[in-house]
């Protein structure tokens, strides 16, 4: 009977039985081992869920980066700040709703998503037009310039909103949790996973079926050829950068639900996002997807063994080693087009 409960409490009860008749001891022992394997199974499931959840966050943060890097060969160090801007957009939307239309609070995120996309996307296009387009063919300089930009954006937000964390609330449908077997699943994590997959699917469809998507893929594969076929590569670059930044903004909306909204929000994601992109390979969104979930799950399975920090270090070291084997990531473009 106790065995059927099968959880931690039951285990404590059974192991704490102490002196009992042999028969009871034996039954208890078998119950203990069965519960233990049951628990081990559930803890695997729990880790896998945490891993998927982390993976979805990583994917959301990295996917915009993957697009700009893939299409333009540009590393945008200010990508994290686009995420941060998305999160602050959510904050502002909620503030307005709180003070003016409290009834709409549950819809605040739905309002924030397109707004964040527009805000971050607009700033992205602005950055591309004023800075990045002068630096094409000089990826290392782009990296430095965008880093400088990230400092400016962080400081700007710090000046405008203060250096401390800002409160962003969860709408009712994102609060709370439900039990699935032995594990607890919080609604916000679940929604973020679904949201990420939806964003991914929409993006994939956009790349496949729209004219901009076709042009972006053409530029990714062979910029010179695309240019000579009459594709306005500079327009594609600007829109790509806007799109990548916009998605970062959306990511910010989602992250505002699970993380502190502070000027440093972006920084904490940027290195992880790089790792995802480098690991997954460039020019293929599926690579980013696989990369994000692999890293997420690997991270969560290493954590209980090695501890959170050591696990993270181990992942970084593994990626550094992995890069040696596959310098262009898991899903790399091959052939002459690779080297311009």
């Amino acid at each position, binding site marked *: 009977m106790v065995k059927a409960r099968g959880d931690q409490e039951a285990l404590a009860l059974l192991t704490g039985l102490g002196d009992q008749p042999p028969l009871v001891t034996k039954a208890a022992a078998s119950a203990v081992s069965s519960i233990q394997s049951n628990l081990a199974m559930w803890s695997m499931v729990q880790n896998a869920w945490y891993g998927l959840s982390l993976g979805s966050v990583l994917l959301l943060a990295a996917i915009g980066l993957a697009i700009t890097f893939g299409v333009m*060969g540009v*590393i945008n160090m200010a990508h994290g700040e686009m995420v941060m801007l998305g999160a602050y957009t959510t904050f502002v939307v909620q503030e307005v709703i709180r003070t003016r239309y409290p009834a709409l609070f549950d819809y605040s995120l739905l309002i924030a998503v397109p707004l964040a996309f527009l805000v971050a996307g607009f700033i992205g296009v602005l950055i591309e037009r004023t*800075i990045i387009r*002068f*630096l094409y063919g*000089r*990826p*290392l*300089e*782009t*990296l*430095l*310039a965008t*880093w*400088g*930009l*990230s*400092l*400016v954006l*962080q*400081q*700007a937000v710090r*000046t405008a909103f203060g250096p401390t964390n800002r409160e962003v609330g969860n709408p009712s449908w994102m609060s709370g949790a439900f039990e699935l077997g032995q594990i607890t699943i919080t609604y916000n994590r679940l929604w973020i996973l679904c949201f990420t997959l939806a964003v991914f699917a929409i993006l994939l469809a956009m790349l496949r079926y729209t004219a901009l998507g076709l042009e972006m893929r053409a530029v990714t594969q062979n910029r010179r050829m695309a240019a000579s076929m009459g594709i306005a590569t500079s327009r594609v670059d600007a829109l790509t950068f806007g799109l990548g930044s916009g998605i970062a903004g959306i990511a910010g909306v989602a992250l505002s639900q699970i993380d502190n909204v502070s000027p440093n929000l972006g920084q904490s994601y940027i*290195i992880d996002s*790089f*790792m995802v992109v*480098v690991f997954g390979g460039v020019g293929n969104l599926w690579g980013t997807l696989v990369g994000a979930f692999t890293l997420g799950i690997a991270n969560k399975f290493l954590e209980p063994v090695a501890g959170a*920090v*050591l696990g*993270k*270090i181990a992942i*970084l*070291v593994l*990626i*550094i*080693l992995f*890069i*040696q*084997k596959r*310098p*262009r990531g898991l899903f790399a473009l091959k052939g002459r087009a690779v*080297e311009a």
Partner: protein
Amino acid sequence: MTPHILTRSLDRAATAFVLLVAAVGVLIPLSNLLLPQGSMFQVPTYLVALWGKYVCYAILALSIDLIWGYCGILSLGHGAFFALGGYAMGMYLMRQIGSRGVYGNPILPDFMVFLNWDKLPWYWYGFDKFAFAALMVLVVPGLLAFCFGWLAFRSRVTGVYLSIITQAMTYALLLAFFRNDFGFGGNNGLTDFKDILGFNVQAEGTRAALFLLSCLALIIAFLICRAIVSSKLGKVLIAVRDAESRTRFLGYRVESYKLFVFTLSACMAGVAGALYVPQVGIINPSEFAPANSIEAVIWVAVGGRGTLIGAALGAVVVNYAKTFFTSGPLAPYWLFMLGALFILVTLLLPKGIVGTFNSWWEPRRSTGIAADEASAAREDGISAAKMAE
């Protein structure tokens, strides 16, 4: 080193730079020690330490310029080598505290007593000897760079990929050094130093000597870099920077060249860190922060990548500006300025101060697109006459 390397590396500008650093290295300590306090020309002790810090940064900038300016390797993790050199020195200084620590343990540093450790971890052995610590200042960063570079360059990880994984490297070290059980003082790092080689680190005389030593190290590092970039090796490095695969097809083992300069550069960064720690009085994990490494890169960009004097100058100028602005009422705007500096330098002054000055000063070489890209080559003194000697 054979004399012909020395004569080749010392052109007029280089000689002027060496003399300038030597003069500063002697005059500042002298004015600090000999002139009466309050005299107009007396340099206060805190300024000696501050400028000593700048000189260490200048060495770090040289080490970055050697690989980035001349070989095209943009390391965003050079702060890690700097910090490792600093930690090696810090460990020596910790051991010198002896029983004068708060807990009075003759062997264990305070933080270990605090964590209830009963004996010294093996990797702390030997750091009570200065010679050993000094060796480790070179060996630890050098070895890390060698292993890292061996893996990366052999599999031809280049460009932004290399930059990103160097950043990951320093980030991983940052996380590791933050941990208490890693044995390097965790969050607080190593501090409260007392003596170096028996001299009080706080004493004016010691500070003056450290400053002089830093200047000497800067001169030596500069001469080593000059010797390299003005040799045929320097021409090969530039060839690798400009057309890596072409260089391979000429029969050069590009990865060996990269590995050589990368390792050497890491050792130089380590020395810079080791001289930095006793003058600043603390080393903690924040030195590993990726932001620090990127900031060091911008010093080089400001001064002029591919011009060694520019790199050293850039480090001093940017850090002077940082001290000036962050200590005044403009402090909240410093990050705006730093950020703008990154953007403006890459957009408007890609050759940096010295590079721009050079191309304005000596418009003798051919014009056209090449002239823009040639600033780096120019400063090397790749002169035709010398080749035939």
